[in-house]
C-alpha cells in the first residue's frame, strides 16, 4: 500500500502529522491525523485547592489562557454553589470580550486574511500580513497592532497580567475597576467597533465581491454536514461567557440545549490508540466514525458553529451582519421550524468577523453599565464544596471544566473537554476530503494541494496549545509519497 506522510514541520518535531494511505487503485484508502502529545492536567490537578484551577489551567494554553481562567472560575463558583455579584460577572465578561477582540483580530489578519486578500494562488512570499499591508495600505498594519494592543490592555486591566490572568476566584474577582480605567476601556471599545466594521467591509469588498473566492467558499471541498454546538443566552443569541449550550442538527433543527452540569448527557469522547487526543462526539446521536450527516455524532464548535447553533447576535450591528451572512450564503428559504445552516467551512472566517463586531459592541455595552465600577465584586462562599462544571465559549470551541472536591475544596477528580479538541473529528474529516479530491488514481495534484489542505485546517483556527501547543499558524507542510515498500518517490514542500 502506498503511503503519504504530511508533516506539518513544527509538528514533525513534536506536534502532529497526517498519514495518507492509498489503495491499490491509487485512491485514498484512509487518512490519520495524529496529535502526539499529552501533559496530563486531569491527573496532576488532583490534590490541588480548587481555587487554584483558574491559575493552573491557564497553563494549558498560553494563546487562550483567558478561556481556561474563566471556565475554571465558573467551575469554582459551581463547586461552592456561589453566585458572584453582578459587577463581578460583568468584569469577567468584559475581560473576556477584550480577549476575543484581540484573538479574532490576530486570526483574521495574520492567518486567514492572506488567503483571501492576496488570493490562494498568490505567491507564497506575498501571502502574509505584509502582503495585506502592501495591497490594502500601510495604515491597516497600524490598526491591526492597535487592535491587539487594546484587547490586551483590557485583559491586563481586569486580569492583572497580559498572559495568564490571575484575578478570578470562587465567588467573584479580586479587583474592581476604577472610573479612569472604565473611561479608557470605553474609548477603546468605541474604536474597536469601528475597527470591526472596517474589517467586515474589507471582507465584503475583497472576498464577497470576487466570484472566484465566493465559488471557493461555496465549493464542495470545504463542505461538511455536521452538527454544531455553541453557547446561547435566554434569547438564543450567541454568548461567549454564559448561557446554555445549543445543539443544532445539520438540517437546522435544535436537538436541545444543555446546562453546564448536563454536559455528560450530551458529549462523549472516543479514544484511539494512535493519537494522544480524544475524539468528542454527540452521545445522543452516537459515534459512527469520521463521517458527515445526521446519523453521525460528529459535531463542530467554531465561530461558524456558534452562529449556526444560535438564532442571532445580541448586539444590533452584529445582528445586521448575521442576517446578511445567512441571506447571502443560504438564499433558499429554510423549511418551516428549522433555521438556515451554513455548512461551508471557509465561511467560518466571515462568522469570526461577525463575532469580532459583537465582542467590540459588547465591550462598549459592558463598560457603559453603571455597575461596572462597583466594588461589590466578591461573594464569600458558604456552602460545602462538592462538584461543579463551568462552560465558556473559547474562540476555538466550547470549553468545559468539571471538578470534584472533598469537603475542604481540594480536588479529587478533574475532567476537561477543551476548545480545539471538539473539532478533532471534523478537522480529520476535512483533511480526508481534501486528500480524496486531490489524489485520484495515484495522481497527486501537486500544485495547490498543500495550500488546499492547509486552508481546510486554517478555517478551524486549530490551536493545539490545548492539546499540544501549536499556535494557530501557517502550517509548514511536507508531503512524502512512498511506494508500497515505503521508499519515497516524491516529496512536496511548502514553507519548509
Amino acid at each position, binding site marked *: *500500500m502506498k*503511503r503519504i506522510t504530511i508533516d506539518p*514541520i*513544527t509538528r*514533525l*518535531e*513534536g506536534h502532529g502529522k497526517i498519514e495518507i494511505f492509498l489503495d491499490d487503485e491509487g485512491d485514498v484508502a*484512509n487518512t490519520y491525523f*495524529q496529535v*502526539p*502529545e*499529552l501533559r*496530563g*492536567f*486531569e*491527573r*496532576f490537578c488532583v*490534590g490541588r485547592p480548587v*481555587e*487554584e484551577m483558574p491559575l*493552573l489551567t491557564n*497553563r*494549558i*494554553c*498560553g*494563546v487562550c*489562557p483567558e478561556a481556561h481562567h474563566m471556565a475554571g472560575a465558573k467551575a*469554582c463558583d459551581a463547586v461552592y454553589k456561589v453566585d458572584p455579584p453582578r459587577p463581578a460577572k460583568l468584569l469577567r465578561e468584559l475581560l473576556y470580550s477584550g480577549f476575543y477582540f484581540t484573538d479574532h483580530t490576530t486570526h483574521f489578519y495574520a492567518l486567514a486574511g492572506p488567503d483571501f486578500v492576496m488570493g490562494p494562488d498568490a505567491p507564497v512570499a506575498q501571502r502574509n500580513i505584509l502582503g495585506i499591508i502592501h495591497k490594502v495600505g500601510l495604515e491597516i498594519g497600524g490598526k491591526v497592532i492597535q487592535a491587539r494592543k487594546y484587547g490586551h490592555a483590557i485583559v491586563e486591566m481586569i*486580569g*492583572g*497580567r497580559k*498572559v*495568564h490572568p*490571575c484575578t478570578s*476566584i*470562587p465567588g467573584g474577582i*479580586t*479587583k474592581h475597576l476604577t472610573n479612569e480605567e472604565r473611561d479608557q476601556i470605553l474609548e477603546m471599545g468605541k474604536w474597536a467597533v469601528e475597527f470591526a466594521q472596517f474589517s467586515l467591509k474589507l471582507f465584503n469588498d475583497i472576498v464577497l465581491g470576487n466570484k472566484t473566492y465566493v465559488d471557493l467558499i461555496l465549493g464542495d471541498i470545504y463542505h461538511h454536514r455536521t452538527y454544531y454546538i455553541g453557547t446561547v443566552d435566554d434569547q438564543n443569541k450567541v454568548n461567549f461567557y454564559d448561557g446554555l449550550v445549543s445543539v443544532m442538527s445539520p438540517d437546522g433543527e435544535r436537538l436541545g440545549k444543555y446546562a453546564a452540569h448536563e454536559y455528560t448527557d450530551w458529549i*462523549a*469522547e*472516543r*479514544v*484511539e*490508540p*494512535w*493519537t494522544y487526543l480524544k475524539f468528542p462526539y454527540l452521545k445522543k446521536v452516537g459515534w459512527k466514525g469520521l463521517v458527515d450527516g445526521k446519523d453521525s455524532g460528529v459535531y463542530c464548535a467554531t465561530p461558524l458553529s456558534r452562529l449556526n447553533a444560535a438564532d442571532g447576535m445580541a448586539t444590533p450591528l452584529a445582528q445586521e451582519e448575521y442576517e446578511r451572512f445567512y441571506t447571502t450564503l443560504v438564499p433558499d428559504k429554510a423549511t418551516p421550524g428549522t433555521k438556515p445552516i451554513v455548512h461551508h467551512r471557509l465561511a467560518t472566517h466571515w462568522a469570526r468577523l461577525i463575532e469580532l463586531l459583537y465582542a467590540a459592541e459588547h465591550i462598549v455595552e459592558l463598560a457603559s453599565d453603571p455597575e461596572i465600577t462597583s466594588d461589590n465584586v466578591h461573594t*464569600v*462562599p458558604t456552602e460545602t464544596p462538592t462538584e461543579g462544571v463551568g462552560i465558556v465559549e473559547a474562540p476555538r470551541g466550547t470549553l468545559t471544566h*468539571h471538578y470534584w472536591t472533598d469537603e*475542604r*475544596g481540594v480536588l479529587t477528580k*478533574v475532567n476537561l*473537554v477543551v476548545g480545539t479538541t471538539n473539532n478533532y473529528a471534523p478537522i480529520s474529516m476535512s483533511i480526508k476530503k481534501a486528500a480524496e479530491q486531490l489524489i485520484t488514481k495515484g495522481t497527486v495534484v501537486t500544485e495547490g494541494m498543500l495550500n488546499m489542505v492547509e486552508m481546510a485546517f486554517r478555517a478551524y483556527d486549530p490551536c493545539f496549545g490545548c492539546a499540544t*501547543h*501549536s*499556535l494557530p*499558524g501557517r502550517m*509548514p507542510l511536507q508531503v512524502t509519497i512512498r511506494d508500497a515498500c515505503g521508499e519515497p518517490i516524491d516529496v512536496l514542500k511548502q*514553507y*519548509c
Partner: protein
Amino acid sequence: MSDKPKFAMYWAASCGGCEIAVLNIGEKILDVDANFDVVFWPVAMDAKYKDVEAMADESITLTFFNGGIRNSENEALAKLLRRKSKILVSFGSCACEGCIPGLANFSSPREVFDAAYATVSTDNPDGTRPAVRVTVPEGDLEIPEFYPVLKTLDQVVPVDYYMPGCPPESHQIAAVIDLVIAALKGEAELPPPGATIGAGDSTVCDECPRTRNIKKIKSFTRIQDLVSVDPELCLLEQGIPCNGPATRSGCGALCPKVGAQCIGCYGAADGVVDFGARLMTAFASVIDSDDPDDIDRILDTLPDPAGQFYRFSLAGSLLRAAKPAWMASEESVA
C-alpha cells in the same frame, strides 16, 4: 543569507505563553530582526527543521528554548538545538524548573493515562490507551514516547543561561535582547555561564507595594474566604499563602498588586537552592505560636503543602533526587 548572528526559538512541552510574551515585546521585535537572522522559530516564521539539522554545530548564536521535556521528541529537539547553538537559554518556567506540568511527577504515567483516558465523558469500554506504535489496517503508525517524568531542559542538555517566569515578562525579555546585542557589538559583557538573566536578584516581596508590619498569623486563609482583600496590607499577613518571600523578583509583583497571591512563577530567589524549603522557612516565620500542637493546627490550614511549596519547581527541585513514591510502589507491584 547575511552574516548577522543567528537566532532561534523553540517550544517543547509548553503552553505557548512564552511565545506570546516574546511577541508582546512590540517594536523591540524589530531590533531582533535588525540584529539577527531568525533561522528557526515555528510560531513566527516558516520552521526549517531540516535546515537546522544541516547547519554547522554552534552556528546559531542565541537560542531561546521553552517548554519541559515530556516525551522523546522534546528530548531529540533539545539535543539538536544544544548542538547547533552557541548560547542556549533555558527560557521560562517549564524549561527552567518544570512549571505546572511538572506537577505530573507526583504521579506515574499509568495514573496520568488513567486520568486522561477514563474520565466521566470518555467512552472507552475496552480501556484503550495511546501507544507508541500501533498497527492500523492500512499500516503502522507512531507517536512519541511519553516519559516516566517530566524533565527540565538542563536535565537533558547543558544550559548556558536561565530565564525564569511563567511567562517571562516582556520588558525583561527586551532587556535581555538588548544585552545580547550590546555584547555581540563588544559594548557589554555577558554574565558568567549558568547565571539567571532577565530577572531580579531579590524576592517578589521586595518589589511588592503592600505594607508589611511583621504581623503573625493564627491560621492560613483561602482567598475566597475573605470578604475583601485589604488593598494595602501584605497578603501573607492577611493569612493568604503568598509565595512572594521565596520567589525571585522580576515581574514587578503583578499578582499581589491586583489582590491575588504570588504563585511563585519566577522560581527560587537568588541563592535559594530549593524553593519549597525556603518557602517553608518563610511561612514558619509568620506563624504566631510556640506550641507544637498549635503550630501543627496552623499548618493544617494549608490545604495542599506539596503543591504550595513545589507548584512550579517540582521537576527541578531537590525532591527529584529521591525516587518518586509512585515509582517505588509500581516496582513493588511488579
